[in-house]
């Protein structure tokens, strides 16, 4: 009955709107597109705010089209179909897919009315961080934002205390009047109406900062926020003087600890680990008005309430602190008073030029080789070298002596072009024969599992291999999609539709040229369609069962749920153990998986002291930089990561569960 009534009601509303619209009188339509924060997060989806002002009477119905271009190439085309503009101001929020290398992004706005031709509403450049900049964003949530109610200056300015720049001190050449020119943190102020209802929408932000009790958020918003934090996000809450039950329950649910462990009366900040993400609860009274200067959001840093460096380090996932002599060469101007801080657990791109090529190029290149379709094999280089050598010999000495013997050396002007052409055609023909296999590329899917076996996030790396030059299209729902740069494939890609709810991503594929895409989904099965086997993860919690029980349960679970080839790996206390000798996936995959987990760490070992799984997790962004994929460390005693790898045909699925020592879940900073 419900399924029948709902479409009917929608139809009725549309008919009413159309009827109203038919009676509209002429008016002027103005519009603009801006990013939600003044500068968006680096290497993350871009949140946009489309503002349309209609001064005619009645409703104006039509499609809103936003075209995003980068260096004059189309990047994204968003169409909101059947939008009804009422008289006055109309706001629409949307997201644009991540572009890792684009620094010149331009938005063009059009309105296509039901009747009549498209109205060009002009365009504007979008403030995207350049390659020299690192943009951070904090989603600042408060029930008063967007309601028209007066907002106290303190509410606007609290986010200043969380800014990334407070952790770093840059020398005069990269900062101006104490304000960084390379590292920039900006807020996106949101009230209840605009606060994201889908966990994917949170991916545009590094940190979510809620200044009041959470009671102003509805169930859907709280669920999406929880899912995002569990997938690796960072939530900062200011502890109200009298926290509500809902607030306390929310925190207990986040940390998954007994109520006795949560002491909200603490005078210090509480750092809580929540699956792959973390929650920071600021101490009570931190936001007291007398500690703040009553100005707007452009408050000077010196007037913001101070947070200790270790609290900021927790928020921004700093790995550790090195002394300046250890890292002065690598850091290029980011210096703390007591030493040097390396953000992101050791990777030094922040504040300097982002070195995207180093990690993701290597990773994409490795994946390109490993995920090629079965049967696709290049001509060995030895054969090519042999053909070329023969060609040189024929064109040089053989031509000279044989034609000389025949006293017809002048024929070299015919023989030589013929030989060159024949050799080229030979290689082309050989290649055509050898690569005349048409099979799809393979994929590897990494699914992070949380408490009760719920999926936290899914990252899928898929190889697309074309046998002819064409445009490859993929449809996605609630998914962030990007292309990994591989160095050999610089083809164009763009997206259309409603991002990230439903969109079609198109890739220009060259002949026999592999392309690896990354797609990321956050949330449980209901929201994101992530399928997970019913593994009894609780029976293999290494912190609650004995080692022997753990091993036997693990093998049992692996055999039940991985009918084909499988592999189990455990990272624990600095030792990499392997279990399950039978049906082991070939050594190549074994090595590959080790690389996948430790490559990031290994490449930057010189920067690392005490890396742990959380040190390498950025808030989810779905970008090609892979900074947001959790990676394990062999040195952290508080973690055990159990990984089950299942091979299904050519595809691999990796299920990972990170167990944390319950005693280390909440700590005071």
């Amino acid at each position, binding site marked *: 009955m419900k399924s029948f009534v709902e479409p009917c009601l929608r139809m009725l509303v549309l008919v009413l709107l159309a009827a109203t619209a038919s009676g509209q009188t002429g008016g002027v339509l103005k519009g603009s597109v801006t990013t939600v924060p003044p500068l968006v997060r680096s290497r993350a989806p871009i949140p946009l705010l489309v503002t349309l002002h209609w001064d005619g009477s009645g409703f104006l119905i039509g499609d809103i089209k936003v075209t995003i271009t980068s260096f004059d190439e189309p990047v994204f085309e968003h169409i909101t179909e059947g939008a009804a503009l009422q008289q006055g101001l109309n706001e629409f929020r949307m997201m644009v897919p991540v572009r890792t290398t684009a620094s010149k992004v331009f938005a063009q706005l059009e309105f296509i009315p039901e009747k009549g031709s498209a109205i060009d509403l002009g365009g504007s450049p979008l403030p995207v961080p350049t390659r020299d900049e690192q943009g951070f964003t904090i989603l600042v949530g408060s029930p008063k934002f967007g309601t028209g109610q007066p907002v106290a200056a303190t509410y606007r300015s609290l986010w200043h205390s969380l800014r990334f720049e407070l952790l770093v001190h840059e020398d005069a050449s990269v900062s101006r009047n104490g304000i960084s020119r390379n590292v920039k943190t900006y807020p996106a102020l949101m009230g209840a109406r605009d606060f994201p209802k889908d966990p994917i929408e949170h991916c545009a932000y590094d940190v979510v900062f809620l200044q009041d009790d959470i009671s102003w958020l509805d169930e859907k918003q709280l669920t999406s926020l929880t899912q995002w934090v569990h997938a690796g996000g960072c939530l900062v809450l200011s502890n109200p003087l009298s926290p509500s039950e809902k607030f306390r329950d929310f925190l207990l649910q986040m940390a998954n600890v007994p109520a006795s462990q949560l002491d909200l009366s603490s005078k210090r900040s509480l750092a809580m680990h929540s699956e792959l993400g973390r929650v920071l609860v600021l101490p009570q009274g931190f936001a007291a008005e007398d500690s703040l200067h009553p100005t707007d959001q452009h408050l000077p840093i010196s007037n913001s309430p101070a947070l200790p460096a270790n609290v900021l380090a927790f928020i921004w996932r700093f790995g550790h602190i090195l002394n300046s002599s250890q890292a002065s060469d690598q850091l290029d101007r980011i210096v703390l008073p007591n030493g040097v801080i390396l953000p992101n657990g050791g990777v030094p791109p922040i504040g300097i030029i982002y070195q995207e090529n180093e990690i993701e190029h290597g990773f994409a290149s490795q994946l390109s*080789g490993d995920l090629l379709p079965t049967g696709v094999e290049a001509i060995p280089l030895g054969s090519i070298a042999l053909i070329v050598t023969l060609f040189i010999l024929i064109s040089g000495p053989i031509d000279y002596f044989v034609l000389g013997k025949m006293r017809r050396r002048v024929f070299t002007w015919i023989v*030589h072009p013929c030989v060159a052409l024949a*050799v080229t055609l030979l290689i082309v023909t050989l290649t055509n024969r050898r690569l005349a296999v048409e099979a799809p590329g393979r994929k590897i899917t990494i699914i992070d599992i949380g408490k009760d076996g719920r999926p936290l996030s899914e990252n899928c790396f898929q190889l697309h291999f074309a046998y002819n030059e064409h445009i490859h299209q993929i449809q996605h729902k609630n998914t962030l999609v990007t292309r990994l740069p591989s160095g050999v494939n610089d083809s164009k890609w763009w997206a259309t539709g409603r991002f990230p709810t439903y969109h079609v991503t198109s890739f220009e594929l*060259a002949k*026999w040229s592999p392309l690896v895409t990354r797609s990321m989904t956050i949330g449980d099965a209901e929201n994101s369609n992530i399928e997970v086997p019913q593994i009894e993860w609780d029976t293999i919690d290494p912190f609650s069962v004995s080692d022997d029980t753990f091993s036997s349960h693990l093998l049992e679970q692996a055999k039940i749920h991985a009918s084909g080839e499988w592999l189990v790996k455990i990272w624990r206390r600095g030792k990499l153990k392997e279990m399950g000798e039978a049906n082991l996936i070939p050594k190549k995959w074994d090595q590959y998986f080790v690389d996948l987990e430790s490559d990031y760490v290994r490449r930057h070992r010189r920067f690392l002291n005490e890396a742990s799984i959380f040190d390498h997790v950025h808030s989810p962004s779905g970008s090609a930089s892979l900074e947001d994929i959790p990676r394990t460390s062999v040195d952290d005693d508080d973690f055990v990561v159990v990984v089950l790898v299942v091979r299904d045909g050519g595809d691999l699925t990796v299920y990972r569960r990170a167990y944390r020592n319950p005693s280390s879940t909440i700590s005071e900073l």
Partner: protein
Amino acid sequence: MNIHRRRYTSELAAPLLVKELTERANRQQTYIVRVAFALLFYGAFAIMAYNEFSISAGSRFGAGAEISRLAINVQLAGIFLFLPAMMCGVITSEKERGTLELITLTDVSSRALIVQKYLGGLAPMITCLLMALPINGVAYAMGGLSQTQVITGSLAIVLTALNVGAFSLMVSAYCRTTLGAFAAAYCLGTIWYFGLSLVCGSGVLLPPGAYFYRPSELKLNLASAIPTLAITASFLFLSHKFLLERANAPRTNQLLKWFQELDRWYQDINKQFGNVQLVKDRGNDLPDKHPIRWREIRAKAMAKIQYLIRLMLPVEVIVIIFVGLANASRHDIAGHHLEMVVFVLWMIVAALLTVQGSSLITGERVSQTLEVLLTTPIPRRAIVAEKAAAVRILSFIALVPLLTVALGNWYLRFYDNFYLIVHALTFLVYFPLIFWFSVAVGLHQKSRYKGVLFAVGLLFSWCALPIVLTSAIVDMHPFPGVEKLRPLTLFSPASVIIANEEWGFEQYFSAYRWPAFTGPSALIYFPIVLNFTFHTALAIVFRSYSLRSAETRLAAR
């Protein structure tokens, strides 16, 4: 009727082309060049594409497009760099030998002469391009490249060769001497192919424009071939026109004429503003001593100080604008632009010094004045020394814009005295080195064209090869400790200039763990001392060799 038929048959038989091709086919050198080119091309290609080759076959897929682009770029660069040099002497050499009149007396029409000379001149380049053709197949086998792209790439190369060849032939038909044609081909070629392309948009004049724009669209590439072929035909038509009109063009020092015109214009302007003369023209005053030097300064445009100052003025103004802009913005990019200005200025100065040095004696030989000079009581050694002294003015003038940029960079680098000292040392050491090296090369050549060509080619190789080869080997990392080969780049005169502007000097000996190289001062100063000592010694050797061998080489025929 018979005459017409005979001429028609003669044109079809293409005697000049057949003669040219037969001679080349019978020469062992043709095949050696073919093999040498193939080894160089495929060797360089293997080094450049080493990264693609070193990874697994699977990961290599898709690299074909990049490899093809690289190969096409190399071939296009080869065409633009070498084809003008190969073809600019096709007609001028006949003029210089006085054989052009003889050819015109035969049955071969002027039109047929042009076509045959054109095809004959293109033959060596086409041979080389054919040697490189299979690289398209190799790139195709590596994926990422369609068959259409293979065809359009080859089309772009052939069209470029035809176009540049016709352009060079036109210049050759116009000019009186091969050296003039050589200089004109490169100068006008740069303006035509690159300068005008910038103005009109690439792809309009440059044949490979369509290829770079849309390599996989065959129709677009074929359509873009039409204007290219039309321009090629126009060049050939003009070649034919110039051949007839300028077969017996009288000898004129056009550059000197232009300078005299410019001088008059400057003097007119000067009269408007007080008529102050810093350098007075001494007119026809005869010298008391150094007669050769006096003659050089009077006769040559590039030796007269007032001409040089006036030539330098616009360059200096441009440089000052660059420096001013860079200082105003105080940004890394501006600094980078200044570095580029330093490199461009160095290239211009090196080219001027090389041309002056290598044609010091060959110029006298070609104009048949060397014998007259040798009859004078002046020692041969003194002839070379005095002629060289006249070129010194050019060096001093060239110093001005280079010093201006250096001072700008010094300021941008926060008064980096070390940078300025190294910069000054480069002038002191490399100016004489380049000049005396060119003199030594020129002494061994009979024609000015060959002298310039050899000197420029050798200097270019000397500057580029140590850097390119060492960097390529180090980047390939074929064995552990290969970084220790890095100091070999110091054998290139360009290495210190580039290191001072961009690289820094720490890298050369950082791989060595000897106690002497542990400190930063040793790492920085040692490469500089090594490089300048080596090149100063070489400059002294070249100078003494040139002066000493003047006794024997000047009289050699």
